Structures are given as C-alpha cells and as structure tokens.
C-alpha cells in the first residue's frame, strides 16, 4: 500500500477516536445542577424577551409549550451565521464567518469527493456529461472545493492578523493558536496550488479517495499532490485533538447547560438519576463536610454546624 494512504487511514482513525472521546467526555458527565441562562429559545412566546415557564402561575400544573422550531432555527443561525458573534463582536465576525463557512464547505467538498470516489469504484464515471447525478457531484465538488478553500484560507489569515494586531488577543492566545491558523493557511495554499496546477477538477484526488474506499492501489500522484494529501490527512487528525473542534463542546454547552430547563418531576427518570448521585460518597475534606459519608447523609444531617 502506498505510504500516503497509510497516513490518511491513520489520520482518519485517530480523528474518529478523538471525536468519540470528546463526545463521551461530555455525554457521560453526570447530571449537574440546573444552570440555564436566558433567553432560552424554545420558550414559546417568551424567548424574544428571555422569559421562562416560571413566569406562569402554578406552572407545574400546566403544559409546557416548547418551540423546537425556534430552537432549531436559533441553532442554524448560530452555526451558519455565527449570530452570537455578529451581535457581540462584529470585528471577529468579519473573519470568523468566512473561516467557518469555508470549513463547512471544505467538509462538504471532502464528502463529495468520497461520494464521487464510491461512484467511480461502482463503475459510474464522474465528470461532465454522462450520468446526471454523477455530473452534479462533479460540479458540486468543484464549487464546494474552491469556495471552501478560498474562504477558509482568507478567514484564517484574517483571524491571524486580528489576533496579532490586538493587544488583548496577544496576551491570551498561546503560540499554538497562531500556529493552528497558519497550518490552515498552509494547507489551503498547497492544496490550491497543487490542484489548480495538476488536477483542477479534482479527478485524481477523487480516484485517490476511491482507492481508500476499495483499499486498492492509489493513482499516480505527483510530489506536490502527495504533499497536499499528507497535509490534508494530518489536518484531519489534528483538528479533533485541539480546541479547533470546539463545536462539539458548544453543542453540549447549549443543549445540556444553557438551554436545559427541564424540571424534575416526582417519580421521573431524572429523579432516579439524582437519587443515585446523592447516594455517592463525598471526598471533599473541608471542616464542614463529613468526608467519606454519602451526599444525602451529609446534607440531611441537622445539628451543630460549628
């Protein structure tokens, strides 16, 4: 097997493991105390001003109306328009939006390459003319590829410039943050030069992806394209290992913390989980805590606190 393929496989495997570990870190964290922050977008009729169902008289006896459409629309605006950044920090938004849109398009590009590769291994030629579906994939790959790479590169450069020119930014950003952005710029630049020079409609690259699917031999790649493929592969591995994959944490921050207003009801599953947590032992050693006893026993105990 061609060594570049080995690098790509390893990168994908590491990336998948790292992403799963990241998701599990948050998914398996125990139920916490409620810590929502308003506005909560699914509060029907109240989200506009930040209200909650707690504004209702005898709220526990009434049905709670959740507006999931509003919540999804809010999420979409966050993901695709970076609404929060727009409202609170327009300067960052100017560079962050192209960077994020570029990344989304680039992910789309990789998926179209994969789809195209699968089609080709199934004997369907991907290109102009012939099968309509295959030619749509061909054009989408080109559009997503160039638009994504250019936007991500410009955005990364802009973010690099902004982080360098701003004193507060320089103070709090580690060398790693700057290098991460430069890595993006480098990968985008090499990819653009290599593709525009030798493979403008991504035909060879698609064959390479196809070879990964079939575990077959890679097509002949020039030196520059080999470098390009290695760089993209390493980037795929690197992103989940760094804070650049903050979208995972952001999802959990919004859904399990900021927007989590689920009340606990008697006899509910939530109550059962909470009872189990209260049954755990406390390890803190402050003087007011009986170390080693169960939460429930410590908090229930009455008597001299001193």
């Amino acid at each position, binding site marked *: 097997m061609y060594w570049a393929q080995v690098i790509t496989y390893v990168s994908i495997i590491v990336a998948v493991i790292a992403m799963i570990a990241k998701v599990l*870190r*948050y998914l398996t*964290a*125990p*139920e*916490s*105390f*409620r*810590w*929502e*922050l*308003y*506005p909560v977008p699914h509060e029907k009729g*109240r989200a506009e*001003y*930040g*209200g*909650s169902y*707690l*504004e209702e008289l*005898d*709220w*526990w006896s009434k049905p709670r109306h959740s507006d999931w459409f509003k919540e999804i629309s809010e999420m979409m605006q966050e993901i695709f328009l970076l609404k*929060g950044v727009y409202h*609170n*920090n327009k300067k*960052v938004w100017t560079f962050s939006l192209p960077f994020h849109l570029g990344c989304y398009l680039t992910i789309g590009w990789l998926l179209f390459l994969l789809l195209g590769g699968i089609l080709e291994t199934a004997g369907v030629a991907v290109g102009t003319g012939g099968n309509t579906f295959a030619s749509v994939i061909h054009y989408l790959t080109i559009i997503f590829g160039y638009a994504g790479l250019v936007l991500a590169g410009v955005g990364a450069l802009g973010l690099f410039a902004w982080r360098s020119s701003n004193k507060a*930014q320089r*103070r*709090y*950003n*580690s*060398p*790693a943050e700057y290098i991460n952005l430069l890595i993006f710029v480098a990968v985008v630049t090499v990819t653009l030069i290599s593709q525009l020079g030798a493979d403008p409609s991504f035909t060879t690259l698609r064959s390479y992806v196809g070879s990964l699917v079939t575990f077959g031999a890679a097509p002949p790649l020039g030196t520059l394209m080999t470098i390009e493929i290695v760089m993209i592969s390493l980037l795929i591995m690197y992103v989940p290992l760094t804070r650049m994959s*903050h979208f995972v*944490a952001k999802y959990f*921050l919004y859904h*399990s*913390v*900021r927007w989590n207003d689920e009340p*606990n*009801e*008697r006899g509910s599953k939530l*109550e059962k989980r*909470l009872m189990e947590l209260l049954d*755990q*032992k*406390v*390890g*803190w*050693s*402050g*003087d*007011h*805590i009986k170390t080693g006893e169960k939460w429930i026993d*410590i*908090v229930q105990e*009455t008597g*001299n*606190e001193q």
Partner: protein
Amino acid sequence: MSSKDIKIKDFGKKTDKLYNLDLKNLPGLPYPYENWQDSPIPELSEIKRKGKNITLDGFLNIAVPEPETEEEKEAMVAKFLEGLRKLLSRENNWTFLKPLLLSLDNCVKCNTCSEACPIFEMSGGAEIYRPLFRSDVFRRIIKKHFSPGGKLTAKFTGADIDLNWDTIARLAQLAYRCNLCRRCAQTCPMGVDNGLIAREIRKLFSQELNIAPAELHGEGTVKQLDTGSSTGISPVALMDLMEFVEEDITDRTGLNIKIPFDKAGADILLIHNAGEFLSWPENIEAFAIIFELAGLSWTLSSEMVGYDSVNYGLFYDDVQLAKVTLRHAEVAKKLGVKKVVVGECGHAHKAIMTIGDRIWLGECNIPRESSMVTLEDLIVNEKIMVDPLRNDFPVTLHDPCNLTRSMGVIEPQRRVLKKICPQFREMTPHGVNNYCCGGGSGFAIMQSNNFPNWRYLVPGRKKFEQILKAFTREELSPDVHKYVCAPCSNCKGQIRDLLTYYDAWERAGIMYGGLVELVVNAMTDVREGFHEWDFH
C-alpha cells in the same frame, strides 16, 4: 506596573499589591455627578492585615491566611492541587462537572466577554478584572498540572504559570472580584461561563481549604443552619419581631392583621429573606397586607431555617447550598403546603426554585413559585384593587440577575409596575440584559474592612450610572422624589449603600424599595401613605 500591563505570568510575582485601583482611571458619572469626587479608599490597618494575604488589589473580603513558613506554603499548594483534582472528578463534583468542563474546554479567547463585564468596564479596563484573566489563570494551572505533558508543552500551549502560594492566594481573592452575574456568559459566542468558573474556584477553596468569606460561611450558612438564620434571628426572636411588625401595620394602615405562622395545610408557605425582618420590615408588612386582603391561604414558618430564604451556599459551596435548600424543602413538606412562594430575594429564588429542583426530591418535591408571579395574578386579574395615582412619581426597576438572566422571570414584575405606577420607566439595558447591582454573589452583605468601597466604586458604579440615566435632568432635582424598585433583598441592600455613598437622596432625590411596598401604597383598601419618603 500599570494596571493594563499585568500579565498572567505576573500573577505569582512577589509583590505587596499586584494591582492598585486608581480613582483617576474610573469612568466619570453622568449628570448631576460630573464633578463628583470619590472618597479616598481607606488603608487597612496593620491589625486587619496581620496574618492575611491581601496581595491582589489591597481590598479585603476574603481572609486568605498567610502561612508562616515555606513548608506550610508548599502544603497549601499541595492541598489546592488536591482540591483541584476533586473539582475535576465525577464523584466529588457531579453537581457542576459538566458545565465546568464545557466552560474550561471551550474558550476561543475572543475577549467578547470583557465588553459585557461591568467590573472590567468600570475599573477603567483593569487587566486583572477581565473575565478571561481569572478563567485563564485557572485554565493554565489545570493545563500545566492535569494534562499529559502539560509542564513540557506549557510555553507552546499557553500554560506557562508559576504555581506558588501567591498565585493561589490571589486566585482566591480574584474569585471574589466577580458578581457571578453571568452577563459575560450571555454574550460569549461559545457559551463559556466565566461566572461559573469563578464560583467553582470559590468552591474549591471552601470545600477543600476552608477558605471562604466570613459573611458567607461562618456568619452565613453555618450560622443559618445553627441558629435558624444568618441574621442570627432565632425562632424566639422572630416572634418578638412579628409583634412589632403587626403593630406597625396597624399604625401605618389602621388594619389589624395577625400574621399566620406554621399553619399546617395552608396553600402557600411564604418565605422571606430574613434581612427584611431587620432592615425593611415594611416589606414583610406589605406582603402580609396583600395576602390577607386578597384572602389567600398562607403561612410563614417559625421552624429553624424555614423563616429565612437566604442560601449563601449558592455563592461558594455546594454542600452548604444543598444543606440549606434541603432544610427549606423539609419545612415545606412538614407543613403540607401546596406551594412555596419565594419573597423578594433573587438568589433565594434561584436556590429554592432551580437549584432546589435537583435536590427537592420525592416527597420533598413541593412546587415553588416566584412572588412576582403570585403578585401579578392578584393585581393584573384585579383580585386586589389599586389606584395608580397614589404612586404618581418616577419609578424605575432594577432586575436582579438571579431572577432574570438565570431564571427568566422578567415580565410579571413589569406588568405589576405598569398597573400601579403611571411614571414607570425602564433602565437601559434591562430584563435579561440587565447589569448587576454590584452586590451580587454575596458582596451586598460584605460590610467590613475596605471592601464596601470597592463595590461602590467598581461594580456598583455601573448600576448607579444606569439609575441616573433612567431619569431626566429635570427629574434629577432633589425636590422630585424618585423610586428605584428592587425586588430583591440583597440588591436593595447594595442600592441603599450606593445611594448613601453617592449621597443620592440629598443630591438627586433618589430613594429605593421593594415592589410590594408600591403595591400596598396603591391599594384602595389601604389608607393612603403606606410608602414614606424616609431614606433608611
């Protein structure tokens, strides 16, 4: 070193005072305070300083003991790291692990939060008060000491911080330079909560190192659990106070009202912040008048802790938080009430209603409601009759952070005010985007040493600016009496102290009070003049 030049790597430096709050750097105030001269910040006496580490900014609200020997200091550093390990573990910190990890992992250092923080803004941009500064000190310690290869890669990943005793002592103090108002979290594009991080730092110090402000711990939750209330009012003293309250109702209104206590099976257990009994009995009286005249079935409790809704554990310690809230639940369960109504206290709302939601389990899971909602029902649905012209003076509303940003109770209090105050106007911004009064997270009750000056000068200054801007130039004449409605006991305490410090009653005719006092002042079934323009 200029305040703006302090870097995180300076945090552990040997110096008597890392940062000096210079009155010259504070932003000016609007009319009629353009020429206002702040009083000099009092220096702490040798006796007050003795044995304490006050090396952050010279203000004292948390007495961090200064170890005498290097060995003791090293032992404290080790204890801190042990606490940090527990803070990051599932078993010990199930209560907040998830939000903590998410906030630690997710910051992209964009500094959007700084603009939102009143403490950073009103200090004139002091670097150490930047929300990100505190969080990043903490993050760097974690990264350096708890991630594989952390020490080796420290320079590259930005974890270069010296973990010595001064770093730790200053971190404890810095955790108490945040109101936990969560305004920064609201604007953070990632959802990171710097307020939560500050609270978790406080918790580590309390739950592992026994370091917490006396007002919150010894004189706060411990006293409350021991004597029944952090004010020190025992159940017996409470009954004496109630006699005074009943007499005062008769003197002010001519009404004879017997305040119900421990009425088993009542519909409502009303629970007040006990600070009201001592400082603002008119608030207790007003609730009693409204509930009695509306014919509600209600009661107060004289059980230990049951007559004091405060729960300072919310600000610094999960164990104390859970202990106090469980006492509240047990009192409600024993009385067999249908619901608990929380009086005018923001943090008590949050502790009893949303935090309590994860502790009031099984039989103790008794419904809880905000008094803002109970009042709205009575007034908007005309179960009590009001004449708004009795409140025909300029009124503005302060939004307690816990009630609004953390719970989404925004409109009920506004609907009440719109019904009873013809000259009601909003502050800018308000509701869920409000600014903290500056007394949040327990600061309002910290009255000793030189700390009150800090809370008037820095976080409180933002609220004071907002209050001034809520009124026109003409209205700001001392002859026009104005009312800042603060439906929260702690906010009321802070606003009282602010108005006193800035001499605002004398200079600008600004008074403060709760919501129920305005309601009773407007009630047609009550003699006119319940509200008195008597600043106290």
